[in-house]
């Protein structure tokens, strides 16, 4: 194994690592050596592990815990060309009060919108504790000059975004210009101020698990607060396997640096059953420290109503149907 590759100190308890990776990002070639020195990912084995954790049977009290936790982890999202202030305000109301028939229902973590809707969302969510997340950096393709991307970020932060969801330059990544990707993340991070930065890899476009592991480390080294699978705008979005892989990355990164990074699967998670499978992945891979909406999020929209229906079923013993949750 190359000397730059991470090798956890077996005696070091988790969270106590202090490894510095400054050398790894010193040059394009050093970064390339580092990322290509990470252990490979066996596709069959990774997917088998994800599938096997998917067979966990989560019942009764565990299910109730998982449903509430999942609701509290949702970045309730609308990212459409047709978005209007009215739509965003309705979504914000839903985030604050997901189930009007049951006030014990937790709030979602955030509402996720385009930058031009961030101010509307911020006004609607003021004082609620629900965060405003804004996509930026020429989301979803990321095909714009760096200055344009940074202006996009500044705009969102100024409008009151608490969290910025940026996309990486997949073209640069796939052509091997890792340092360019790294520098762009660093530059965006600098514009974020106190806003937390989620770095979207668009795993469906990176295509291989080796690439996803490399992108995860690249993002963490560049200062991401969260690593996020996808935009929800391509064919393959969050899957149990790519999320499991990213959970391994944040687990290993904390062991070596002491720095905890969040994970956000986004796109394609629509049912409570799916969401619970992801929480099992979190629990048995990164561990319970990540079972909190500060460290794990779901990028989703229709998932919330399914969770609410399951929650009502657990408390009343009956399925009430889609007319008993709000359509927004």
């Amino acid at each position, binding site marked *: 194994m190359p000397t730059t590759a991470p090798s956890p100190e077996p005696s070091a308890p988790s969270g106590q690592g202090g490894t510095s990776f400054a050398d790894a990002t010193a040059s394009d070639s050093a970064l390339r050596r580092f990322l290509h020195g990470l252990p490979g990912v066996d596709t069959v084995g990774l997917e088998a592990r994800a599938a096997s954790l998917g067979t966990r049977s989560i019942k009764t009290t*565990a299910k109730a815990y998982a449903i509430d936790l999942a609701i509290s982890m949702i970045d309730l999202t609308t990212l459409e060309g047709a978005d209007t202030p009215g739509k965003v305000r309705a979504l914000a109301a839903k985030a604050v009060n997901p189930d009007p028939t049951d006030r014990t229902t937790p709030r979602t973590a955030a509402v996720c919108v385009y930058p031009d809707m961030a101010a509307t969302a911020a006004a609607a969510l003021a004082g609620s504790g629900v965060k405003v997340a804004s996509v930026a950096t020429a989301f979803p393709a990321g095909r714009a000059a760096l200055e344009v991307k940074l202006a996009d970020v500044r705009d969102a932060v100024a409008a009151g975004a608490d969290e910025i969801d940026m996309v990486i330059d997949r073209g640069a990544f796939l052509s091997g210009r890792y340092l360019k990707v790294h520098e762009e993340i660093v530059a965006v991070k600098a514009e974020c101020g106190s806003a937390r930065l989620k770095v979207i890899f668009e795993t469906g476009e990176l295509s291989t698990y080796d690439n996803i592991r490399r992108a995860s480390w690249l993002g963490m080294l560049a200062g991401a607060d969260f690593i996020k699978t996808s935009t929800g705008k391509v064919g393959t979005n969050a899957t149990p396997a790519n999320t499991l892989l990213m959970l391994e990355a944040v687990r290993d990164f904390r062991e070596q640096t002491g720095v905890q990074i969040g994970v956000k699967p986004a796109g394609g998670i629509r049912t409570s059953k799916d969401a619970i499978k992801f929480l099992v992945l979190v629990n048995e891979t990164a561990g319970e420290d990540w079972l909190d909406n500060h460290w794990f999020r779901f990028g989703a929209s229709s998932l919330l109503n399914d969770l609410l229906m399951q929650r009502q079923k657990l408390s009343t013993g009956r399925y009430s149907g889609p007319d008993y949750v709000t359509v927004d």
Partner: protein
Amino acid sequence: MASAFDYAPAPESRSVVDIAPSYGLFIDGEFTDAADGKVFKTVSPSTEEVLSEVARAGTEDVDRAVKAARRAFEKWSALPGSERAKYLFRIARIIQERSRELAVLETLDNGKPIKETRDADLPLVAAHFFYYAGWADKLDHAGYGQNPRPLGVAGQVIPWNFPLLMLAWKIAPALATGNTVVLKPAETTPLSALFFADICRQAGLPKGVVNILTGYGDAGAALVEHPDVDKVAFTGSTAVGKAIARQIAGTDKKATLELGGKGANIVFDDAPVDQAVEGIVTGIFFNQGQVCCAGSRLLVQESVHDEVLHSLKRRLSTLRLGDPLDKNTDIGAINSAEQLSRISALVETGEAEGAERWSAPCELPSAGYWFAPTLFTGVTQAHAVARDEIFGPVLSVLTFRTPDEAVAKANNSQYGLSAGIWTEKGSRILAVANKLRAGVIWANTFNKFDPTSPFGGYKESGFGREGGRHGLEAYLDV
């Protein structure tokens, strides 16, 4: 493992299986008491609860069963292959239909987690019958010439670690090729074979084609010794395998023996570490390590030893040990008190010899037979835990420096059943696999089974192959 996300109990329902208070031997299509009326009890190893009382076969019963099989042989072997296939396909489908019931039954009688019986044992059992059903009318194309003939009556003795799966490995190819069988399941796990007898009746299988004798080693020995048995198939310990080989020496009985193992799981420094850790866990903790092809020796390249061990221990700490019927249980009970004491004794030897023991932190239930997932580090080729088959959830960790040393250490064993290779380098997989003296070699995976793949050993792991086209040969007069 205390966590905020505490999985509530999720037990599979016991009510899907109806276990009778007593069972007879299955001879000539009927359930019957033992000639001398002897019985024995079978218990659930996770609770020590008595599940049922089962007839104990003696010499006279063996003779009755072999005679029934001999009578049935003429008609059964004369059937067109396509007709025999119909019965096998029917049996396979009934197994699928009754798989939940059989999975629960197997978990109760054996102690292994429902997750394994449901997702591994039962699908493989059905697949085995489907696979050999497909061969029954195609034997001309199996590579043994035109119209290859069956041997006659097969005497089959199987172990307790995969009761129904080992039955499938033995019975499916025997019937497909036109033999009739007398099968003796292990004394600690007789029930699934008796349920299989019921499935044979349900499928309308002609009387005497399959006979099941529950009993102890004396019945197995009588079966092997019976002069009218043409073929002996045994899976079990090397000691018993040697005894069988001596017993049948000088007779014209054909035999296949599938015996012990001490599989080397070789992890190179360029392995996909997270998946290798999963493979190590599957290799030695699948079925509580009570697997003849278990990867019980971990050979890890010294340069990544610490990293791999750190990840492995972290992973073992998440294993869930407990009620085998709970769908979230990863590690079930050891099959018997006898096996538990054998494992404990070998582990004590390991400690006495100076290997460093580490056991996963988990609470063991107060009733039943349990052993926590355990590993030994600092093990060398000279340690007993590196040489003797433990047949339990105990992993011995050794190191190597170069591929040549890995191969030399892997082959330095009285056994040669299985091996695993973990590396991202394809050329290394091929080079190392060619040098390993083991019947089954897995690359970047472990304990993967498929009816199309032959399985069997080198050296003291036995001879003959089961599974695949190769598995037909053992039941044909070729």
